[in-house]
């Protein structure tokens, strides 16, 4: 059952595939083909439609993504070789893909399944900060995330410092930081009574050396936890990624392909980025060899994905995947505003709503453009998950989700460029009690009242 799908073939093709310089790949192979496919399949963003209801558009996007990937393959950066596949090979990997996946263990065992459009089953929700935190705050933040009852799994922060020094990628502190990360998050989730919850990754470790160093279920990462293999935008991978992929499969880990395309980058605007996003999910299957994937597109200038055009793209990509693939993909929200602001909670609600109705599972939620140290809390993730789960439970249809998303956008889209930075984690939480402050708790309640007035579904 794939993944993995024929690992030796991937490694062979990374060494012997067609030679191609990176600049030629970006400008002569990828971009012209994307332009051609946008025209051929008439993929066009319409400002009035945040959540499209046109199945044929979703299917066309899938076809365009598949055609793109068959044309480009994945570029291996060290060898400048394209890892190419035939359509039959991709089909073989797709039909071999599991219908569901089990993560976590014991009472925290969760099934992750492929969701359909307007699926009434609840989405699998990972709560993750994924931002740098100091050594003093790191474990407290992890406990705060694991204390969220709606979380099916938790990611973690990035350990910014260790023993008073900055953790540095590829340096020995990367390996030490990875070990500290693995030990600290396990202890943190045990302390709050969730020792077996799915831990999504060791985000501190960037290098393959540091990642592989914690492939040790005895004290590091368990095989019921997740490991990440990132794609380099667009449709590229390096040896570090392939090293990880091989090691994680050899050790029997659940692999999550990580992918964050930039709208305005190599694929162009939202239409082109939508096409390359489908192609990248195919790369996630064929090269990253992921069981799960997390998808966090963002605007190259604003760094968020809660704007109208990005929500349209997220919706359309997930609809294409829902209708045409078995993939287990999580939609990862990035808000422009920071914690303890009304705006970030509205952004989170919009992302959770649009993603879930379109067929995604959830990975929530990065605040303050995922840029500023300490500026994210579990409260934003709770809002995204609560609205997403409520939308599934109530069986919200795409047409209705479209109108609701537009109402939410009306509340915040004019403020995206100058979004409030909000507060730091330690200003939003009582860090001794590991609970949100009275101020943030009240704000959450008030925003929920507002959501109810707007007709947005909430869970509790």
């Amino acid at each position, binding site marked *: 059952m794939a993944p993995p799908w024929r690992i030796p073939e991937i490694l062979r093709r990374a060494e012997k595939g067609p030679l191609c310089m990176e600049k030629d790949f970006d400008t002569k192979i990828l971009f012209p083909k994307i332009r051609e496919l946008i025209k051929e399949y008439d993929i066009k963003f319409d400002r009035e439609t945040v959540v499209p209801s046109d199945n044929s558009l979703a299917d066309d996007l899938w076809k365009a993504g598949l055609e793109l990937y068959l044309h480009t393959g994945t570029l291996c950066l060290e060898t400048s070789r394209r890892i190419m596949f035939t359509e039959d090979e991709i089909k073989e990997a797709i039909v071999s893909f599991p219908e569901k996946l089990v993560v976590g263990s014991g009472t925290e065992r969760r099934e992750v399944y492929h969701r359909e459009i307007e699926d009434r089953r609840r989405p699998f929700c990972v709560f993750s900060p994924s931002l740098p935190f100091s050594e003093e705050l790191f474990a407290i933040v992890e406990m705060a995330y694991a204390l969220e009852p709606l979380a099916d799994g938790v990611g973690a922060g990035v350990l910014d410092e260790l023993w008073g020094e900055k953790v540095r990628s590829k*340096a020995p502190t990367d390996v030490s930081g990875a070990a500290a990360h693995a030990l600290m998050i396990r202890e943190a989730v045990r302390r709050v009574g969730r020792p077996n919850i799915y831990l999504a990754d060791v985000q501190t470790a960037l290098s393959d050396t540091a990642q592989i160093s914690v492939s040790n279920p005895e004290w590091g990462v368990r095989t019921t936890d997740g490991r990440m293999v990132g794609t380099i935008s667009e449709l590229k991978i390096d040896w570090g990624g392939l090293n990880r992929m091989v090691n994680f499969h050899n050790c029997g880990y659940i692999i999550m392909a990580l992918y964050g395309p930039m709208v*305005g980058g*190599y694929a162009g605007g939202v239409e082109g980025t939508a096409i390359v996003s489908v192609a990248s999910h195919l790369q996630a299957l064929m090269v990253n060899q992921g069981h799960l994937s997390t998808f966090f597109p963002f605007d*190259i200038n604003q760094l968020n994905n809660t704007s109208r055009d990005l929500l349209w793209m997220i919706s359309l990509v997930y609809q294409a995947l829902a209708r045409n693939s078995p993939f287990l993909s999580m939609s990862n929200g990035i808000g422009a505003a920071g914690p303890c602001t009304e705006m970030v909670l509205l952004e989170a609600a919009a992302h959770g709503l649009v993603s879930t109705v379109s067929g995604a599972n959830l990975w929530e939620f990065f605040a303050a453009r995922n*840029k500023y140290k300490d500026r994210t809390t579990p409260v934003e993730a709770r809002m995204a998950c609560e609205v997403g789960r409520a939308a599934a439970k109530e069986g919200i249809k795409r047409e209705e989700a479209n109108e609701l998303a537009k109402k939410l956008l009306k509340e915040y889209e004019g403020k995206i460029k100058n979004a409030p930075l909000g507060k730091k984690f330690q200003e939003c939480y009582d860090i001794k009690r590991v609970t949100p402050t009275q101020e943030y708790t009240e704000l959450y309640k008030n925003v929920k009242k507002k959501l109810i007035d707007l007709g947005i579904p909430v869970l509790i």
Partner: protein
Amino acid sequence: MENLFGKLRKSIFEYNEETAKEAVIEILNQGIEPTKIFDEFASIAKILGDKFETGELFLPELMLIADVMKAAADVIMSEIERRKLMGAERKLGKVVIATVAGDIHDIGKNIVAFLLKVNGFEVHDLGRDVPSLEIVKRAAEIKADIIALSALMTTSMPSQREVIEILKGTSQREKYLVLIGGAPVTKEWAEEIGADGWADSAVRGVKIAQELISGGG
């Protein structure tokens, strides 16, 4: 004359290197000073920056346009040399740019590099995951004015500091202006490590570089 400048502009936006070079030669043959062409380039660069920020122009287009402008600029420079034209010197700053050690993300760095190029800087792009000593060595080799350092991960930001510390440790800090950027990089970090400039967007990065090179940064 308008027609020739129109031809040049059209060629650039259509990524047509040959007709762009032809247009430049035709303009020079008319006795127009090369500085006028560079003024036109500056005007085009401004348009490119604006269009990139408003989402009307994307990175691959920027890369193709930068190649055409570089080819046209090379023709101008060789014509200046050949004809011994006077008054044609450009105040070009030399920039060494890299994504620092431990970081493989280079889209942001590429955008800044291309915008610097189309704005007339001589750009030496060292690529991604470049060791700090290599950056310092290359800056010395080409006698750079600016060292521009990109980092997209918090765990690669220490490499920005390392470059500055190597410069200090080898008594070269005063030789270069150091500009830093990247999604997690903040003004506070720039101040902490003693960088000369910081920018939160590619377009702003080019403006800061221009200000630094003119002594106004």
